[in-house]
């Protein structure tokens, strides 16, 4: 099995970097999957940039790399040619102080102007938090303004009405329809990537579970895969299957949650009540299988800590089949409700072209007709045996995102059954590979329930983390949400928002 993801690195001179990225962007038909920097000024006197694309045909990551002089780090902005690079450039601007010339937007993302001073770059190795704390904050943030007669703004957040994370939405509307939506996020910024740099790879596994709680297992899985790739570890088959089962369980409880959430956002309470019992049952199942409702503590470098024994198998299979029965019932209730269908059908359309340009990934991309799922690309050994096929819808509306969830829920149940059979055949092949720490850098990735979680990590010879770049699917997908609501009425925003259900903590880091 290619549990270890393949990567090809292309070294480009700084002046060739932009052209090389653009060439790959077109040739591979891939958005920028992640784009980040690393401070190597002490070792080599440079900031190194990495721009990562996905080569679906070769089933590999293609990484373009360049070094910028540490004293004056600047690069031509890629975002005018490749929109999907834009947010990453803003992030590198605020975290490293790298300048992106001719960039259409240089505002900071997570370091809010109201609380953070100018000229302090947290991901630089010589960053001093004490100095930053003494300096005065930058000032006020500038929203994009829409002017014109009768146009008004509706600011929402950061504290929302529901029990949910914080973020700010600024609507510009003329009458009912939304003309522009600008999200301002970063309210849950905790300095995650910097904190990784103080840890050993072993300790960092449990920390990775605390980055985005509803994807705790996916995060630790992606992180472990990165480290396993550096250490050259082959994860035992049994452990790979167990990981896949838990990835699907995580997908199922979140999909159930969102399907219920979409119903309640149009004021349809019963489906939500029913779906929340499915979620609760799956969380309780997680606890019975692993001791943790959110599957924390299961992943470890080289494999897993928790086995699914023969005695647990009936519990697992009965639980997922019962969940399927309720979800099928729910599917019938929702699809036969005219008023519900009226609200979701044709609402919040994200066009395929827009989704591709923005680099929207995962579930939201598949609902807009983009067939891309890392399970198909990198996880052939387990998912290939399950005859996995990505769930794709063409319409790109709320209904399409609802249906992708129903389809994936159904597929997960089928695959868990198949995987349980595979576990019998895998026998007692062990749950973990032994290892010795090594220096190196690699990408670990997984198709989590929202989409690909991509973690690039570098270790030193003792296994200490020197840099850890996390890319959550939400990071680019928030822009997809902003485009999907255009022309829709503000009261439909909660519904559109829930149909994406993006992560605040995964985005803000």
């Amino acid at each position, binding site marked *: 099995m290619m549990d270890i993801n393949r990567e090809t690195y292309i070294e480009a001179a700084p002046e060739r970097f932009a052209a090389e990225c653009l060439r790959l962007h077109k040739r591979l038909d891939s958005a920028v999957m992640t784009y980040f920097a690393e401070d190597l000024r002490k070792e080599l006197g440079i900031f190194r940039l990495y721009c990562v694309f996905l080569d679906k045909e070769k089933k590999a990551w293609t990484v373009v790399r360049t070094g910028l002089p540490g004293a004056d780090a600047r690069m031509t902005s890629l975002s005018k040619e490749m929109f999907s690079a834009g947010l990453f450039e803003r992030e590198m601007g605020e975290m490293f102080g790298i300048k992106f010339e001719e960039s259409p937007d240089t505002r900071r993302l997570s370091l*809010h102007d109201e609380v953070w001073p100018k000229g302090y770059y947290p991901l630089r190795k010589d960053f001093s938090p004490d100095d930053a704390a003494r300096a005065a904050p930058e000032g006020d943030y500038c929203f994009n303004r829409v002017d014109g007669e009768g146009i008004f703004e509706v600011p929402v957040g950061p504290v929302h009405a529901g029990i949910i994370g914080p973020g700010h939405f600024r609507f510009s509307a003329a009458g009912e329809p939304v003309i522009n939506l600008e999200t301002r996020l970063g309210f849950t910024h905790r300095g995650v990537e910097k904190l990784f740099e103080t840890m050993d790879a072993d300790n960092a596994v449990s920390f990775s579970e*605390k980055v985005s709680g509803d994807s705790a297992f996916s995060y630790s899985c992606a992180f472990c895969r990165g480290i396993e790739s550096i250490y050259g570890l082959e994860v035992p088959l049994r452990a790979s299957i167990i990981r896949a089962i838990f990835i699907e369980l995580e997908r199922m409880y979140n999909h159930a949650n969102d399907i219920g959430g979409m119903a309640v956002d149009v004021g349809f309470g019963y489906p939500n009540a029913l779906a929340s019992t499915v979620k609760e049952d799956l969380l309780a199942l997680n606890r019975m299988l692993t001791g943790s409702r959110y599957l924390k503590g299961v992943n470890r470098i080289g494999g897993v800590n928790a086995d699914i024994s023969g005695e647990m198998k009936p519990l697992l299979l009965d639980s997922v089949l019962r969940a399927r029965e309720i979800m099928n019932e729910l599917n019938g209730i929702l699809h036969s409700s005219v008023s519900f269908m009226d609200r979701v059908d044709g609402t919040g359309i994200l066009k395929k072209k827009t989704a591709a340009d923005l680099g929207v990934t995962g579930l939201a991309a598949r609902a807009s007709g983009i067939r891309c799922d890392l399970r198909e690309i990198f996880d052939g050994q387990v998912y290939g045996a399950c005859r996995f096929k990505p769930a794709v819808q063409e319409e790109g509306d709320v209904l399409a995102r609802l249906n992708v969830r129903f389809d994936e829920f159904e597929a997960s149940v089928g695959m868990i059954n198949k995987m349980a059979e595979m576990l019998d055949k895998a026998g007692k092949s062990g749950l973990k590979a032994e290892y010795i720490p090594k220096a190196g850098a690699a990408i670990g990735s997984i198709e989590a329930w929202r989409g690909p979680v991509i973690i690039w990590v570098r270790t030193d010879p003792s296994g200490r983390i020197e840099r850890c770049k996390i890319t959550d699917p939400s990071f680019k997908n928030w822009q997809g949400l902003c485009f999907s609501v255009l022309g829709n009425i503000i009261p439909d925003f909660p519904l559109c928002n829930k149909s994406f259900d993006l992560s605040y903590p995964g985005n803000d880091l």
Partner: protein
Amino acid sequence: MNNILKSRLKRGILTRRIDAGGPVPPELETLGAEMRERIKKRFGRSFHIRQVDTGSCGACVSEIIAATNPIYDLQRFGVDFVASPRHADALLVTGPVSKNMAAALRKTYDAAPEPKIVISAGDCALDGGAFKGSYYTAGGVRQVLPVDLHIPGCPPSPEEIIKALLALLK
């Protein structure tokens, strides 16, 4: 409509008497009844909470929502979550308090009427937890607001959240 009724009748009442299994002692139901009485007297029949997330990973939030699902049904004891701090007797705060949220948390507190009870939930909310020492966290809710009760856990389970709320009102 028919299918909803049918589905509803088939399921019956799902709310679990929280007495077997789980880490919570069997007296929870009796405690719940007591809580109901106290809420009636002290808060005019209902105890309203405004949840504020200041940078949690989302697991605490998920468990707070779970406490209101039909299985735990926290509302049956007279506790409910409201959309505005103006309607709240208490704030339930999760997360290590990102610098970006400190001002919003204070404003939410200012907007709440007396008695302004503050409950923090989750290990991060106590002292920053896993994010202690970060350049961008205040290091727990206590650094920003006076906290009346802390609910430990990463995340605290719905049973633990319910139990802690019962203890607060005792």
